[in-house]
């Protein structure tokens, strides 16, 4: 718990094994329908009110960071797909961005455009799936999820054609992308992007006006801006609280400074704002996509001198971050001049956004915990790495 003067309430807790007449200790997870994977929360309930919530991580730990230090730079690229498996392409980009910074590699313009297009499509995928998941957490029996997945499939089809896999794309390379856009891909992408607006209209009508959703999400899980900033929260969760922090604007990477888009900001930062901010972000993504597809230049998709085999960056250190769909995704690399990185470290947005879970949940209902967890939008692959 982040100590903060705005939080006078300290939770009565139970020691492990201790039981109380009044308090009920419930273990939500690791096998629970709505923990988004294998995540566990040790919740102490007073009636249905949460008085303490301790997260237990690590059920999906795969030792990615240490493994990456013992394999070549290229070999760790496919593993980044498995971090946040909803949006592999932004993960790819973050690693490629860090290695390019480390080795000082230039990226051709066309490759930058391809990266922007894929990253924004990924943002669409992530936010659309989020809408389905959070409605599932609220008990809406999968209708929104199915609508979301139907549209997500269309983007995944594009990814399959481009990268060879729907989810495990392994697409970015140090100095560009693995391959060029297939023939006609940009046109198909334009069709998908143009069809996405009407779909979003429908989904918004389906969700946003729903009184039950309003009642469930409004004034649930909000925290003061200060706490959020101190907790290192990034991404839509932070912007929903009204903090203007988007790395695409704060520290433009790639070619984001060439596009015209805006950063939507919420006011309260409750679960409802988090949903709305994601809708607004999707609309901005569509705007970026439309511009990028219009301006897509010809040229190399990878730097001609980029090395695939036996790639050895010079001795040095680099931290590079991008605005992933879930927040700031950074890679910290230290090279000792060999083919393997000396140190390889990820700053995963899911994990850091999850650290304030207890603060958001205290004093609320058990049912709210599930929604708040959903509104944080975690992927356990990234949390546990």
């Amino acid at each position, binding site marked *: 718990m982040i100590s903060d003067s705005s939080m006078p309430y300290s939770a009565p807790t139970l020691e492990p094994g201790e039981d109380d007449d009044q308090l009920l200790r419930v273990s939500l997870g690791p096998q629970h329908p709505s923990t988004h994977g294998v995540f566990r929360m040790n919740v102490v309930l007073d009636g249905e009110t949460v008085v303490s919530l301790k997260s237990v991580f690590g059920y999906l730990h795969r030792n990615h960071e240490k493994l990456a230090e013992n394999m070549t730079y290229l070999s760790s690229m496919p593993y980044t797909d498995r971090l946040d498996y909803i949006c592999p392409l932004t993960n790819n980009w973050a690693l490629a961005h860090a290695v390019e910074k480390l080795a000082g590699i230039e990226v051709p313009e066309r490759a930058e455009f391809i990266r922007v297009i894929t990253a924004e499509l990924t943002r669409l995928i992530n936010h659309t799936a989020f809408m389905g998941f959070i409605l599932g957490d609220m008990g809406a029996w999968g209708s929104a999820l199915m609508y979301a997945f*139907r549209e997500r499939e269309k983007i995944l089809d594009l990814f399959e054609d481009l990268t060879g896999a729907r989810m495990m794309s392994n697409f970015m390379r140090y100095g560009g992308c693995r391959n060029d856009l297939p023939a006609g891909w940009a046109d198909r992408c334009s069709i998908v992007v143009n069809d996405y607006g009407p779909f979003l209209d429908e989904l918004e009508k389906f969700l*946003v006006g729903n009184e039950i959703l309003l009642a469930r999400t409004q004034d649930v899980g909000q925290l003061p801006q200060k706490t959020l900033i101190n907790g290192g929260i990034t991404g839509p969760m932070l912007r929903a609280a009204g903090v203007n922090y988007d790395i695409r604007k704060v520290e433009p990477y790639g070619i984001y400074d060439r596009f015209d888009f805006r950063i939507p900001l919420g006011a309260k930062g409750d679960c409802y704002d988090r949903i709305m901010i994601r809708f607004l972000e999707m609309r901005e993504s569509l705007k970026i996509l439309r511009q990028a597809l219009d301006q897509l230049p010809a040229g190399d998709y990878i730097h001609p001198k980029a090395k695939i085999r036996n790639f050895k960056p010079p001795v040095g250190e680099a931290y590079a971050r991008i605005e992933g769909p879930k927040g700031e995704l950074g890679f910290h690399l230290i090279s000792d001049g060999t083919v393997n990185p000396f140190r390889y470290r990820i700053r995963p947005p899911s994990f850091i956004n999850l650290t304030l879970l207890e603060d958001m949940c205290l004093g609320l209902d058990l049912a709210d915990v599930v929604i708040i967890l959903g509104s944080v939008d975690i992927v356990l692959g990234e949390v546990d790495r």
Partner: protein
Amino acid sequence: MSAEKTIDRLPAVPKPGRWIMPGLGLIQGLVISGKNAIQSYYKKDRMTTIQYPEQRAVISPNFRNFPFLCYDDDAATGLRCTACSICENECPPQCIYIVLDRDENGKSLKRPKVFDIDISVCMNCGICAEVCPFDSIYMDGEYEMSTDDRFGGLMLGLDRLAKSAEYHMKLRPEEASAVMAKRKAEEEKKAAAAAAKAAKAKADLEAKAKAAAEAKAAEEAQAATEEKGESA
């Protein structure tokens, strides 16, 4: 509805200050789900799922699943693989196992004796295909590979990995024809190089013979002079 027009507003949210009746949002949701239910009977693009064994998804030619080894003419002798082990080293989950074939003298035959890929470990990343300098390993598009044999059925040996160049051509014509063209050019280059080498060798041989003859002649001459000297 034009997508351009709707991009900046949220259609479900009325303007601040406009009063709405409670329950309208619920009815709106019911209308949308009802529309989906009815349209699912006649609108194909509404459907989320396909009926798998009878219907199949259209798979992109770029789809990659597990690797295969390409051979040119004959599976036994035509393998392009030279057992160089680059893929073995680069493979992220290290699911490739290669043993180089050697003749009885221990000399490399530049072909794999054993080439195993454990597809229960393989994560379909395609890095082996990317790093292969001999155009030998490619990613397959086959996906119906389920088996009840956990160890035997998922450990692909040379017999199941080796697939012909024609298969590759059928699978991904664009990539395969580019590779074929490249290989052909290389082969021609190689042939030309070999021819040049052979010519050079011949020339060398001739030169050597000439030199030998000259040397012999010189030797003879020397011997003759020595003989002369002795006799003198």
